């Protein structure tokens, strides 16, 4: 089961005067929010605690310390009322019969056993909720409620009120069939395993006695029993191989399933012939074995991560609904119903869903999601605002000029056709496995022609059919299937989730790595702010906080955030000097905040990420933002530099150019890149025959991630990522180099087991082509080759993973 880092839980113990929030464990900046002896970091956390206390649900806090989710960035809105819209409601409801309504919500913030406890006690909060069940690995909750007492929108709002915001996205609801597929595969594995085991048991006496069993009636019974057991395997369990290979043949293309299907059919018909015509034991054990092991291999390979979606499109980034202004009244309508000319309201931290003109209010749009640019952009009335931006500040009204599907952002998404990627990733082993069947067919045809010329018709028939059975390409294919499946599992244990097995092979071809900056190499919120210098009095703190709050520069915001609320200070003469700092007169004190030379610090070496503060001309100290770049970033880049070409593409401005050029080299840095630029850059690299890996996090990288040979989405909590091949937990970023090594090792394992199976096949073919393969040899060779190869690959990948990924 994939484990994710808690959404926000820096467990800092209360050293000095620091108080942590009773609900979420974050550091409280001031002591404004408290109840009895408990302190909270924000109003939201306090509210959640009150709700839980009033409903007698405080056991929530007994199981884990600070189990809650911080409510600081909470968006308050009546956005759930759209769920009561009939067409939307129907999409979410699983079952309804008048008394009971069943609904499943996806709650990405669920992260611990306390969450499970609380969510399964929803009925205590509202008696209209009849039952709630949590599926933790999927982060889903199934609620049964009485719709005559509570509406769907109210249920969602109730979840939201205690900190579990349901993620409402139509794309995620629409897909569901996968579960059934995995279920039927498990059943197929069960049946084929059952048949394989029993047939093996009955085949033993015949093999051991060299074909001559004393009791003939027993022998016949065994044969027919084996045949009966093999029937469901042949007709039901192996079904997916037939359909898949038939599809590929129809498209004039040989896929990997063709040789498997051929081998299964040949083995089965040859065994029928043996039982009914030659009156000998067949090869039913081999046939069922092939099917069983292939299915097991497939199962492990396809064991995808339930909570992770690799194929999101723009739809899942957008809200489900938007507030439409109609004759002065607000009304929530589904996003798809927005038309040109509609007037919509967008509140603080809400996403702008369509290209629109600002008609009321002051726009302060944060485009970091789309472009990576960290600073919000000011917009005045009448200006065009592109979809994808987030409003920061008071609510604004917008007039839609293009429907959602035609906006700038969605256009970008639709332009990318990434499907070509799969075909280019043909692995050497897979290609060989595919043609191996053809080679064997040709060989056996030659052998049988040879025996026909010699006049030995019986041998000719045998020489044609048995090689197909013996030289089963399955062993070859199994090696790749099992190695990759096992490798995916190990990657998953370390917070690295691969979309499919082909990605591992693609790793070995990578020549160039492109990084995004904001959110990928840097932390998106500057949590690592610290202050060094003279201790500030509480009045001075308020002054500095007030000054910092005036600017939108990321550092200023971080300082304001750290110092907490600024109230009641009088400010005048505020000046901002871009690239240098800010100054103002606050409560009669002259304050300045900024770079060393701006504030007046003498003979200090210029260091990145330090902001000095001076009050009335006296330098008080400085703020550090050292942790903006992720831990281990410098080591990772330095280690990769030797083997790969590294680039950095950033949508942000070039304020970090000097710092980054020491790592990447000055000519490998590109700033102010639009999403289109990034995509074009990757294309240009690929045109030079380079194999590109791209690491990014936001919607702004989505195009580039799709275009690159391997797109890695770096994610804070693995819940919400753009379409990509790999989803990686941010904390694992420094392990990137080891990933490459492990991918190399798993290629070695595949090659090794490949050699092993070639040896088996050559021995088998040697006998088979001469038309004199004894059943004993076939019987020993087939399971032996399969089992040794399976254990070889799993064993070797385990060793490789332990060596490379641990520590």
């Amino acid at each position, binding site marked *: 089961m994939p484990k994710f880092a808690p959404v926000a839980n820096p467990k800092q113990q209360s050293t000095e005067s620091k108080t942590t929030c009773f609900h979420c464990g974050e550091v409280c900046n001031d002591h404004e929010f408290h109840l009895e002896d408990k302190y909270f970091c924000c109003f939201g956390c306090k509210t959640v605690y009150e709700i839980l206390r009033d409903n*007698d649900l405080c056991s929530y806090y007994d199981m884990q310390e600070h189990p809650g989710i911080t409510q600081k960035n909470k968006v308050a809105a009546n956005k759930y009322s759209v769920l009561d819209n009939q067409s939307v409601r129907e999409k979410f409801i699983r079952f309804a019969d008048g008394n009971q309504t069943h609904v499943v919500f996806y709650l990405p913030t669920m992260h611990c056993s306390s969450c499970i*406890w609380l969510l399964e006690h929803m009925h205590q909060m509202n008696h209209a909720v009849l039952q709630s069940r949590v599926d933790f690995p999927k982060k889903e909750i199934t609620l049964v409620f009485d719709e005559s007492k509570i509406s769907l929108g109210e249920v969602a709002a109730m979840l939201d009120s205690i900190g579990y915001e349901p993620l409402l996205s139509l794309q995620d609801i629409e897909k569901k069939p996968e579960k059934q597929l995995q279920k039927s595969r498990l059943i197929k594995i069960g049946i084929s395993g059952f048949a394989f085991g029993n047939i093996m048991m009955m085949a033993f006496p015949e093999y051991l006695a060299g074909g001559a069993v004393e009791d003939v009636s027993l022998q016949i019974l065994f044969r027919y029993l084996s045949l009966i057991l093999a029937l469901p395997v042949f007709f039901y369990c192996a079904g997916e191989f037939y359909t898949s290979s038939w599809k590929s043949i129809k498209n004039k293309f040989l896929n990997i399933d063709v040789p498997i299907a051929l081998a299964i059919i040949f083995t089965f018909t040859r065994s029928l012939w043996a039982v009914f015509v030659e009156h000998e034991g067949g090869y039913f054990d081999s046939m069922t074995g092939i099917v069983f092991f292939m299915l097991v291999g497939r199962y492990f390979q396809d064991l995808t991560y339930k909570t992770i979606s690799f194929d999101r499109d723009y739809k899942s980034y957008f809200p489900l609904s938007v507030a439409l202004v109609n004759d002065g009244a607000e009304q929530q309508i589904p996003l798809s119903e927005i038309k040109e000319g509609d007037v919509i309201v967008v509140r603080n931290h809400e996403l702008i869903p369509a290209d629109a003109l600002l008609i009321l209010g002051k726009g302060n749009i944060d485009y970091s999601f789309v472009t990576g640019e960290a600073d919000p952009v000011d917009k005045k009335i009448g200006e065009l605002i592109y979809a994808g931006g987030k409003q920061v500040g008071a609510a604004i009204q917008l007039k839609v000029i293009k429907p959602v599907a035609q906006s700038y952002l969605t256009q970008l998404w639709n332009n990318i056709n990434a499907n070509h990627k799969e075909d280019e990733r043909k692995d050497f082993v897979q290609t060989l496995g595919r043609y191996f069947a053809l080679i064997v067919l040709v060989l056996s045809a030659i052998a049988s022609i040879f025996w026909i010329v010699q006049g030995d018709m019986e041998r000719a028939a045998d020489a044609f059919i048995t090689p197909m059975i013996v030289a089963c390409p399955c062993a070859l294919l199994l090696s790749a299937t099992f190695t990759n499946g096992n490798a995916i599992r190990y990657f998953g244990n370390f917070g690295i989730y691969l979309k499919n097995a082909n990605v591992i092979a693609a790793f070995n071809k990578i020549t160039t790595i492109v990084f995004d900056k904001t959110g990928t190499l840097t932390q998106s919120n500057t949590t690592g702010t610290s202050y060094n210098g003279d201790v500030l009095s509480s009045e001075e703190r308020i002054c500095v906080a007030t000054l910092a709050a005036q600017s939108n520069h990321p550092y200023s915001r971080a300082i304001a955030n750290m110092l907490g609320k600024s109230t009641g200070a009088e400010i005048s003469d505020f000046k901002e000097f871009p690239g240098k700092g800010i100054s103002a007169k606050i409560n009669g004190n002259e304050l300045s905040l900024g770079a060393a030379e701006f504030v007046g610090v003498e003979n200090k070496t210029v260091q990145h990420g330090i902001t000095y503060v001076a009050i009335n001309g006296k330098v008080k100290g400085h703020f550090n933002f050292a942790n903006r770049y992720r831990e281990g970033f410098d080591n990772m880049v330095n280690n990769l530099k030797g083997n790969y070409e590294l680039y950095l593409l950033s949508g942000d401005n070039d304020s970090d150019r000097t710092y980054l050029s020491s790592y990447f080299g000055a000519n490998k840095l590109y700033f102010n890149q639009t999403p289109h630029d990034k995509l074009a850059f990757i294309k240009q690299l690929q045109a030079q025959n380079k194999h590109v890996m791209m690491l990014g996090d936001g919607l702004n990288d989505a195009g580039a991630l799709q275009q690159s040979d391997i797109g890695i989405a770096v994610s804070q909590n693995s819940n919400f990522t753009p379409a990509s091949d790999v989803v990686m937990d941010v904390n694992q970023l420094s392990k990137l180099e080891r990933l490459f090594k492990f991918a190399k090792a798993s290629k070695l394992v595949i090659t090794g087991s490949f050699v092993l199976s070639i040896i088996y096949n050559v021995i088998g073919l040697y006998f088979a082509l001469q038309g004199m393969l004894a059943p004993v040899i076939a019987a020993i060779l087939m399971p032996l080759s399969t089992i040794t190869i399976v254990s070889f690959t799993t064993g070797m990948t385990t060793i490789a993973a332990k060596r490379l990924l641990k520590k």
Partner: protein
Amino acid sequence: MSVIILLIGASILVAGGFLVAFIWSVKHGQYEDDYTPGVRMLFDDQKASNHPTTSTKTKK
């Protein structure tokens, strides 16, 4: 030898029984969520009496 035939029949029956049990468990979603039930089991039930309507049956 007939004892072997009897034994074979018995062993296949027993194995078949397990196969049926396995198929039943897959169909009833026993392998879908292998984490939550283990946690759920450890919760205290002090409030269960307040709430008689809870049924363990899940409808799809």
